[in-house]
């Protein structure tokens, strides 16, 4: 028998803030997705129209924007897998906090690797 009530899963601290982060990144990704389908659809208009608009992505400011977008996607992806583990793994709820730290560690590793590669390509020569 527990001697005191267990902490709630989704109020305050890691549980709540990961939920806030999941919502914000989700909305950001959704609006980008709408724009991304529209810009890609320009291939159906003409090769010039597509290449011109996609050219707008190839500048240093957009390179930072893309890195931010990928940061949102990678957090949403890893935290989404954590949510699935919380829901379906028997010990998921017990270890939700540790899993968030694992998500953040993997997120940093992935983003360091992505940023080095993408920014050196996007900001380098050409």
């Amino acid at each position, binding site marked *: 028998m527990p001697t005191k009530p267990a902490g709630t899963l989704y109020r305050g601290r890691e549980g709540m803030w990961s939920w806030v982060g999941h*919502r914000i990144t*989700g*909305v950001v*990704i*959704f609006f980008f*997705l*709408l724009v991304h*389908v*529209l810009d*890609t*659809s320009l*291939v*159906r208009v*003409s*090769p*010039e129209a*597509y*290449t011109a608009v*996609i050219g707008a*992505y*190839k500048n240093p400011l957009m*390179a930072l924007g*893309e890195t931010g977008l*990928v940061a949102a*996607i990678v957090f949403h*992806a890893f935290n*989404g*897998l954590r*949510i*699935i583990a919380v*829901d*379906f793994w028997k010990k998921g709820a017990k270890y939700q906090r540790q899993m968030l730290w694992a998500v953040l560690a993997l997120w940093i590793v992935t983003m360091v690797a*992505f940023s080095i*590669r*993408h920014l050196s*390509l*996007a900001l380098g020569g*050409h």
Partner: protein
Amino acid sequence: MTATIESPRSGRIAPQYRRSGGSKGNFEMIAWLFMRLSGVVLVVLIFGHLFVNLMVGEGIHAIDFGFVAGKWADPFWQFWDLAMLWLAMLHGTNGVRTIINDYAEKSSTRRWLKTVLYAAAVVIILLGTLVIFTFNPCPVVDGVALPGGFCPA
């Protein structure tokens, strides 16, 4: 003398409070499950998409009409992108639906926002699907065929 207390839940629950058999069925449970299943698939599809388009070769510098044409000349990437489009749009639309339900307090506001959301989702899904399948990777511009290793000579 003991008073007889009627057993709760003895069939006198007003219809609007019943948890099963309502007109909504188990839509919310299906939606919850869909978010998890589509989420796992989307991690694979989107990480693959980002890796192939941004990390390999010249990365973003290689992306132009010829790059997209080269990918969609191959049914593998057509179906990859089609699956990504449908799953991401349904996953995102359901996520935004949840957020609207959480934060829009007036039911008329909720209805309006969701109408706009569903209309946008239908337009984007249909447009994207149409583009993937009616796209010609080897267009002839001003009588000149664009070069592409995947095009017939």
